[in-house]
């Protein structure tokens, strides 16, 4: 990775006033800290730099995006023709389960986390996040969760190659990959219906939950506490605001799923009766607990996208965001109302009239703040000077497609109409318009916008236009017909369908669209690689942007800002460039102390990796493989020791003196 260049840019310490050699020191445990390592791998594994962590999140998430996309392509290929037998029913069910899980937890959420990590400290003028080591822990816990959740695929691949067989001690290993849908409705997740895949899924999600929770708390503290002087809450960039709202949503929504998954795990491993009908368990309770988490989760996915768009549109219209405060406020309202509408996923479960009506009305209410955002985006363009650079093309596409997704959302909010749409392809169309037309396009817009900042290289050529054409055309060819499919009665999650129901043409068109979309994503990957390999130096502010992250170098130095900026206004950089004299950014004097940097550490990495034996051990124990309980306990000990040593080793830290460079 070109990231090694960052190291070269690092201030040369020889010129520092005190001859201050940057050498690793010993921690309070007596070990050498892994600072200033020459080994690139060691440097990245132990890094606490929010920018490197962000880039790692992004890379892994893009990988899983491709994995999830590949799964989707197989699904679509299977459905191209009626009564197709390309893959078996079980394989199909595994694919759509893992497609949903992968896209939500392993692709979109970490992509958002990548942007949070990279941008938030830069946007608020901070050196790093509040707890850099917790940040590193979050990343590696996410990786551990991803490994556990996908472990079933590995076993299945081994099984196909003849290297693994469910016999002897592993006889209980049936259903290697999860196959109960990404919301795992009980009692299908019970031991009488599904096997080991469900356990991998439960444990993997549990670990991902820990990763998300720790990251989210970290970001709330960062945003509340670490802002540069003058960066009042109402001067923060909208993306930072949305990060704050999303982090709070994670903090308050994830416990519900954690407990629900815990109960499910107890049902499977220790014979409790939470969702076991014969023992009095009510599967409906799982649905409630899941959606109490699941609906805020929808906003966890989509609010960062809205934040990205709210950053890009002003830059390329040369105007401030229209109605900043109301956009921020509506984001917060969406977040809060998000906790009060969960049952609209359950209109067909027989909630009763009053509850159905209440959730129906609340769902309509949540359309208002969402609409407000769209109005404000249009207002931002109005009277501006609209430049069609790559990030802008995707942002405009986002507004368009997200609007489409929003409209089918309003259609769902009418509970009786939803009785026909629920669990049909209409729903699939709706949330893919939101997820691809909304979130994916916004994330791509974000990549086009910020990658020059992240790697210091500018995009080459106009491939982005083709990416936009293929991905939006592909998305619409794939998902627009699905509205009709759903209304013509095709239920979702069916691995095949009979001829004669009028679904054949639509399905074929959808499949063709999926390949067009896939081609668009392929072009995106090519474009990113081209940018890495051939990009020209980007300069600090290639887009004539407005917010603070563009005030520093591209890529930013490890300490972000040589001197702490003092923020006089919203849109700090814009005011600095074009505003009156009294709104220019000034810088704090550091009194020659240098910049205090946190030390790198192995402990978060070790503690997080302990989750792998915990997850796999618990899952395999449920499948009846001997000694696996001990593996799980061993993993817990690794986690515990990692955290304890992390606490004892002390935060460390060293000083850098960039002022010589800055001069």
């Amino acid at each position, binding site marked *: 990775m070109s990231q090694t260049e960052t190291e070269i840019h690092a201030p040369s310490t020889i010129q520092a006033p005190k001859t201050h050699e940057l050498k690793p020191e010993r921690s309070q445990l007596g070990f050498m800290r892994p600072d200033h390592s020459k080994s690139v791998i060691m440097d990245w594994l132990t890094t606490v730099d929010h920018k490197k962590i962000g880039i790692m999140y992004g890379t892994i998430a893009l990988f899983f995006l491709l994995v999830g996309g590949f799964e989707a392509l197989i699904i679509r290929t299977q459905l191209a023709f009626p009564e197709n037998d390309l893959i078996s029913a079980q394989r199909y069910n595994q694919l759509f389960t893992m497609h949903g899980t992968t896209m939500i937890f392993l692709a979109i959420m970490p992509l958002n986390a990548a942007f949070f990590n990279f941008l938030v400290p830069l946007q608020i003028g901070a050196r790093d996040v509040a707890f850099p080591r917790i940040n590193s822990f979050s990343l590696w816990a996410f990786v551990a969760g991803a490994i556990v959740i996908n472990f079933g695929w590995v076993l299945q691949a081994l099984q196909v190659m003849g290297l693994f067989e469910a016999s002897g001690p592993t006889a209980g290993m049936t259903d290697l990959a999860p196959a109960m849908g990404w919301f795992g409705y009980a009692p299908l997740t019970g031991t009488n219906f599904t096997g080991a895949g469900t356990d991998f899924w439960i444990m993997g999600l549990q670990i991902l939950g820990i990763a998300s929770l720790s990251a989210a708390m970290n970001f709330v503290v960062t945003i509340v506490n670490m802002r540069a002087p003058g960066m009042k809450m109402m001067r923060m960039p909208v993306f930072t605001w949305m990060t704050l709202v999303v982090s709070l949503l994670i903090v308050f929504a994830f416990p519900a799923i954690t407990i629900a998954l815990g109960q499910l795990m107890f049902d499977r491993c220790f014979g409790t009766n939470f969702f076991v009908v014969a023992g009095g368990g009510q599967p409906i309770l799982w649905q409630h607990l899941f959606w109490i988490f699941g609906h805020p989760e929808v906003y966890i996915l989509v609010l960062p996208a809205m934040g990205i768009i709210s950053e890009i549109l002003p830059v390329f219209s040369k105007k401030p965001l229209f109605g900043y405060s109301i956009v921020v406020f509506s984001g917060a309202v969406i977040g809060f109302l998000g906790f009060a509408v969960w049952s609209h996923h359950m209109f067909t479960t027989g909630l009763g009239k009053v509850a159905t*009506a209440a959730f129906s009305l609340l769902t309509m209410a949540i359309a*208002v703040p969402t609409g407000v955002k769209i109005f404000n985006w249009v207002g931002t*363009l109005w009277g*501006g000077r609209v430049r069609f650079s790559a990030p802008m093309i995707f942002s405009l596409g986002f507004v368009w497609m997200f609007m489409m997704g929003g409209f089918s959302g309003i259609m769902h909010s009418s509970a009786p109409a939803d009785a026909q749409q629920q669990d049909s392809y209409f729903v699939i169309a709706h949330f893919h318009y939101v997820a691809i037309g909304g979130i994916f396009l916004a994330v791509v817009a974000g990549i086009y916008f910020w990658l020059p900042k992240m790697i210091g290289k500018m995009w080459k050529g106009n491939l982005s236009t083709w990416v936009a054409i293929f991905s939006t055309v592909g998305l619409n060819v794939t998902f627009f017909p699905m509205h009709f499919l759903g209304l013509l009665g*095709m239920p979702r999650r069916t691995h095949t369908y009979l001829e004669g129901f009028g679904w054949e043409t639509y399905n074929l068109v959808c499949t063709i669209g999926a390949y067009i979309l896939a081609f668009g994503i392929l072009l995106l990957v090519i474009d990113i690689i081209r940018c890495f390999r051939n990009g020209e130096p980007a300069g600090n502010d290639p887009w004539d942007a407005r917010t603070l992250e563009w005030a520093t170098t591209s890529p930013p130095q490890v300490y972000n800002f040589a001197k702490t900026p003092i923020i006089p206004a919203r849109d700090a950089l814009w005011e600095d460039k074009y505003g009156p004299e009294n709104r220019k950014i000034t810088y704090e004097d550091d009194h020659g102390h240098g910049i205090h940097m946190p030390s790198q550490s192995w402990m978060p990495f070790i503690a997080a990796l302990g989750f792998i034996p915990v997850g796999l051990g618990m899952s395999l124990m449920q499948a009846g493989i001997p000694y696996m309980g001990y593996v799980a306990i061993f993993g817990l000990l690794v986690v515990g020791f990692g955290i304890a040593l992390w606490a004892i080793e002390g935060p460390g830290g060293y000083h850098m003196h960039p002022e010589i460079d800055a001069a």
Partner: protein
Amino acid sequence: MNNIEDILVTRLVETYFISYTYSVVYLFTHQTTISLYLVKHILSGITRCIQFLSAFTGVFFLGGCNLDTRMSTFVTKGPVAETQYDLFMLTVWVTLGIFIAVGGAFAFAIIKFRERPNDDRPMPSQGHGNPLVEIGLIGASILLLVIIAVPTLQGIWYTHDTPEDPESFMGAWYSGEELAEEEAENPLIVKVIGYQWWWAFEYPQLGITTANEMVIPAGKVVHLELRSFDVIHSFWLPRIAGKVDLIPGRTNSMWIQAGDNFLRWKEKQGVAGPKEESPALRADYAAYLEEEIHNYYYGQCAEYCGDSHARMHFRATVVDNEEFAEWVIDERTGHGTPDGKTWDDWYADYADNPDSLTGDLNEGLKLFMGRAKCATCHVVKGNPRALGVAGPNLTNVGSRMSIAAGWLNHRIEEDGSIDLKKQYDNFYKWIKETDVVKPGNRMWKAGGGGIGELIDENGEPALLTEDEIHKLSLYLQSLK
């Protein structure tokens, strides 16, 4: 950015707008010609290039655009589905309005305010918003939502509780016998029970049970009690009603009605006065039911329920009152032995001298009771020893238009009769490769009791032979 790129991108954005307006509009133009004219006026100023694009989109959707399909929610055949459809269309019109207004403003802004080459306009004003505009827009969106909300609430109340409709009380239309006194003031009740992956339909008032193909009277309210045996399923009969889930540990209910009742039908016909009554009107109403409602309806499980979720269909046959009564009697009577003996005699022969029972049907029945172990899981009304309840009730299975929970069909669409050849093939296929037709099925593997696990005296696997399957198929076909 250079000139060509600029034009290209502008075109791209225009293409977004136009192709979308058109394709959404197309959905609605299908409904009435008036809206078509309206839309034509709206689109009248658009250039040739755009017309070409629209034509392209039009052809694209025209190819597969038949909205009157088996499970269509567009062409409804009952008040519940109709209410749901009307609400859907209301949301469509409202959102279409918003789409045109906001999308139009959006597209206008993009085109009007785009940066032109050598643009020497002054820097845009750095205004931060306009509170009046904001509040106005919020107010407008709330107003639009109220337009949806009020009918939604009415719809929720209407579709939720089974209505008290005197015409639908069993006493008012059911001519068969053996109806308990207190049931006369109730509508027909059907208990729907979901299994992995088939449906049981019990008629508790009539003491009958059928599977996968329910029969209901036209124009009458039917109250459904929904339960599940194992995992969550969902009852969805799109043309008659939206779905309600079957959740284990819980009883849900819903009501369905195929076709309007007399009162509602009169209202729609514009006949003055709800009390209006005449034999001619009644005849018209009967004709309406006969022509538009009596039919064979397709339904499917709509909640993912495991391996063969895709193959968990069901059917509803809507019949008139007399046919319904006949069907009930048929179901109650059940079946005799193939050659008219009493069951006692047949069983005596079966025990003492099975070889005396000859012919394909008797051979099939012997397999049914014996080697193939069908009777351990299936009920055949009449047969005193076929009492298993783990699988679908097979009474009159030969009269059903499909087997394997709607997956294997033998209905001739033109006249609604059974294609006997196809039916035989379906039975044969189903028995021969149950696990292929429906992976994970318990009829094939039930922990030692399935037909895929049959063994001979030595404990060796001994699946049914082709000849045995042939005889079983013939026997099952004869159950009608």
